[in-house]
């Protein structure tokens, strides 16, 4: 525990140091990156120890803040979230050294590193806080630091807009959470997590709804996702990796914690999570398929994965309600495992997208192509990450989804609504998986394969050594986690026990051990058979010199890069089919003559929820607010008077 606090101090110290050294970009880079890496190394130790021993560690210091206390609790659930946090922030910091080099002198790198380490520290605080006030401090610090990082390229109008939407989402979420914690601690002397009394039924439902919306705004499931596809692509890539990989998981973590405070669960809560998750994973994958910018594809894929996690939580809750411990345990374990897996592969993918952005100056899919020749080391890593994101064996994405599938199938023979929940979630998982495979084949294929579509893509260069190091490390972790099989249960079982209860953990560990062992055997078999096929190919080619030529285009002699299938043409059959949901804008060429001359085509993916729901709602809210604008006049004396009057009112009410 003390090491975790030590890592917190390293982060805060290096954050201040980076800010102090801001006049010297390279030294402030060093301060920030070394600080983050050292903090990761220090923080991983207690997290691993707690997961192995299963013992909760608590440290408490006095704090003058009313209702607050400096209570830090490191239980296996928090430790399970800390592991991807430390892994990803440490590797992202290493990656950032190379990635941010090109901004040296143009951008305040000291500030960026200070914000990055502050963001990491805030997330550590969120995961280890044992008191609601401390938790909220961490939560708001996290929002502020990530807001600064999103604004990194603030000269772009789109970035400013993204940051503003993000800020609004963060603020709203925090307000809802304040209300939730106030309700929870209404009858308690402090706001320590351990001191929350079990709330009444009505209060529990209110807390559930507030927490679902408040944490949902951070987790970014549909329909609370609107900030996510704007903010993640706007931030620098190593920050996108951290935001997508672990920051949105703080929402999941918070939800699990609050669910622990408001037992027993109502039956419909599980269904609410399950349906929201199913919608998120389906629509997230579908929207990812329609995007034209690599980092936006990845952002929507994060929505899909958060949906999978949420759906698994919901499935587990439905199972728990009907007493099916095995089903519930498997689903909970799958949800947590997917948290870890998604952090690894999404971190890798955002770093790969960053390498593309770094190399070609753009991440617009239609402007890329042929990068596998220009970034020969990044390409396999990105494609491996894509395979992991599509849950293809032998990578790690499969293991987590496999546990959820197992839970879903266990539900089939259990009584009541659990069977329906299992079928629905399995079906959503299968459909979203197929859509995600299409989205990632499209993104990886169009960006890295074929011929470059523009000069910029043709002139791209390989990523720097530190960037490659981070990506390689993550890719290796993806493969190892995919082959680890039952070893995954070692950290999972205590985390499930700490988050949901011991019976779920033991049931899940018992049910999953053998299938997971076979999954890793299967993965190894797959690798062996592919190696065998490769050896056979090599044997066939021994002594032969393969001929080279242009791509066979059915007799056409002069194929050009412009004739390739592009991103929009690749997804057109699917996006057309789902047009009622996607509502993409587009212009198809009309050909009125026999020998058409020029023709143009455009397709644009829309932010459907933002345009159809949030914009009208915001406009109405603005109209209402406008009527009360006389309250906000800018005279400070009167503002102070408002505060005095409020305080007086509260005092009178208390008397």
């Amino acid at each position, binding site marked *: 525990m003390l090491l975790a606090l030590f890592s917190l101090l390293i982060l805060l110290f290096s954050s201040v140091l980076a800010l102090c050294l801001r006049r010297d970009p390279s030294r402030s880079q060093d301060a920030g990156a070394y600080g983050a890496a050292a903090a990761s190394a220090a923080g991983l130790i207690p997290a691993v120890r707690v997961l192995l021993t299963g013992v909760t560690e608590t440290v408490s210091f006095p704090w003058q803040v009313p209702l607050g206390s400096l209570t830090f609790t490191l239980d296996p659930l928090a430790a399970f979230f800390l592991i991807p946090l430390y892994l990803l922030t440490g590797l992202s910091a290493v990656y950032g050294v190379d990635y941010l080099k090109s901004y040296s002198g143009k951008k305040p790198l000291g500030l960026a590193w200070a914000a990055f380490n502050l963001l990491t520290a805030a997330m550590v605080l969120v995961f280890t806080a044992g008191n609601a006030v401390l938790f909220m401090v961490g939560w708001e610090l996290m929002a502020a630091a990530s807001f600064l990082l999103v604004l990194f390229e603030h000269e772009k109008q789109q970035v400013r807009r993204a940051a503003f939407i993000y800020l609004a989402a963060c603020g709203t979420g925090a307000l809802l959470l304040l209300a939730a914690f106030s309700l929870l601690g209404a009858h308690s002397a402090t706001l320590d997590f351990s001191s929350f009394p079990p709330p009444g039924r009505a209060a529990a439902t209110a807390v559930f709804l507030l927490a679902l919306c408040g944490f949902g705004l951070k987790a970014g499931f549909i329909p609370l996702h609107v900030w996510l596809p704007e903010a993640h692509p706007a931030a620098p890539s190593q920050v996108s990796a951290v935001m997508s990989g672990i920051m949105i998981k703080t929402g999941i973590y918070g939800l699990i914690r609050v669910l622990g405070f408001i037992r027993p669960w109502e039956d419909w809560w599980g269904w609410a999570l399950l349906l929201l998750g199913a919608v998120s994973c389906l629509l997230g994958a579908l929207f990812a398929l329609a995007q034209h910018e690599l980092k936006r594809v990845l952002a929507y894929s994060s929505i899909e994965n958060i949906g999978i996690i949420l759906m698994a939580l919901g499935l587990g809750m439905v199972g728990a309600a009907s007493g099916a411990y095995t089903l519930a345990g498997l689903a909970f374990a799958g949800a947590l495992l997917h948290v870890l897996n998604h952090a690894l592969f999404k971190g890798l993918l955002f770093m790969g997208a960053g390498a593309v952005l770094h190399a070609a100056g753009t991440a617009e899919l239609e402007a890329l192509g042929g990068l596998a020749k220009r970034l020969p080391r990044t390409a396999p890593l990105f494609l491996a990450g894509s395979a992991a994101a599509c849950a293809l064996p032998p990578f790690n994405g499969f293991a987590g989804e496999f546990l959820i599938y197992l839970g879903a199938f266990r539900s089939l023979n259990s009584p009541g609504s659990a069977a329906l929940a299992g079928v629905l979630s399995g079906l959503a998982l299968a459909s979203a998986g197929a859509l995600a495979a299409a989205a990632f084949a499209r993104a990886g294929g169009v960006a890295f394969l074929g011929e470059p579509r523009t000069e910029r893509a043709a002139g791209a260069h390989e990523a720097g050594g530190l960037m490659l190091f981070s990506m390689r490390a993550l890719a290796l972790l993806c493969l190892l986690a995919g082959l680890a099989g039952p070893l995954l249960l070692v950290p999972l079982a205590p985390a499930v026990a700490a988050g949901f209860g011991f019976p779920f953990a033991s049931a899940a560990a018992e049910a999953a051990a053998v299938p997971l062992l076979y999954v890793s055997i*299967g993965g190894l078999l797959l690798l062996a058979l592919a190696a065998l096929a490769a050896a056979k190919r090599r044997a066939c080619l021994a002594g032969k010199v393969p001929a080279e030529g242009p791509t066979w285009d059915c007799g056409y002699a002069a194929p050009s890069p412009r004739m390739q299938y592009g991103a929009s043409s690749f997804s057109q059959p699917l996006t057309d*089919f789902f047009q009622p949901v996607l509502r993409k804008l587009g212009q198809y060429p009309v050909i009125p003559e026999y020998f058409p001359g020029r023709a143009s085509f455009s397709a644009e993916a829309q932010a459907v929820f933002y345009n159809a729901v949030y914009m009208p709602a915001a406009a109405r809210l603005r109209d209402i607010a406008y009527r009360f604008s006389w309250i906000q006049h800018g005279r400070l004396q009167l503002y102070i008077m408002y505060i005095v009057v409020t305080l007086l009112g509260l005092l009178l009410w208390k008397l």
Partner: protein
Amino acid sequence: MEVIKPVSQYLAVLLLSPLLPGVINRVKAMFAGRRGRPLAQLYFDLYRLFRKTPVYSRTTTWVFKAGPVVGLGALLAALAVLPFAGRPALLAFEGDFIFLIYLLGLARFAAVLAALDTGSAFEGMGASREMQFAVFAEPAFFLGFAALAHITGQGSLSGMFGSLTGDLWRTAAPVLALLTASFFIVLLAENSRVPADDPDTHLELTMIHEAMVLDHSGPELAFILFGAALKLWLFGSLIACMVLPRHGGLGAFNTALFILVLFGVAAAVGVTESITARLRLTKVPYMLITAFTFSALALIFQMGR
């Protein structure tokens, strides 16, 4: 002894599967009034292709060469969980059919990336369509397995097909019939047969799978052809296991019957190809949605039973 049997079954599948495309071609030739290619044509083709020197496009990278290798590896691994004539497979574990579905997904992913690597408009077109159909086929396939898991109460493919007895066909015939129909439609789409695709043309704009492999040659093309035969065996034997209930007969007789039924499935594919026209491309999703509906109905009937 326990290991030898599944391994020998596995090797038998590798040896026998190239016969299936031969059966389909023979049936089609009969319908067209031709004599047709020899039954063992694919063996000759594979032998020839393995000795050929490939031609690579200058656009391609290692992805193009890795595609067929990964694809064949995935199919070979998928066969390891496939039961043979109702007997347990090499690997049998709870949820192995999910492993199988995702291995097929891996093979498809590899093929699509290899196709995109050529930069050819035709191959891009094929890749795009392959992915589109998978989006509709996978849920149908998944629901089918869910119904099968429910009806047999088993969690692995070997368990499911091992406990699919004649009694089940007597008591739950509608469910099993619907599942067979659904799997047959998925077979047609996944193995690029008429009416979803046409394996004989690769110069028309309706092409899908054949277009994706236009640039492959030599050993890589052999891998792809062999993989296609294995995939046909895989889907065909799912159907054969379904329509051929288990009974306590002689082992050798069972095996012979199973292979006969499997050839029958191939013949049914040939008949379907001969008597139906290829669907318009935009209609193929609806065909797969039909399969999905069959699977869903089967599951509903089964859960209400």
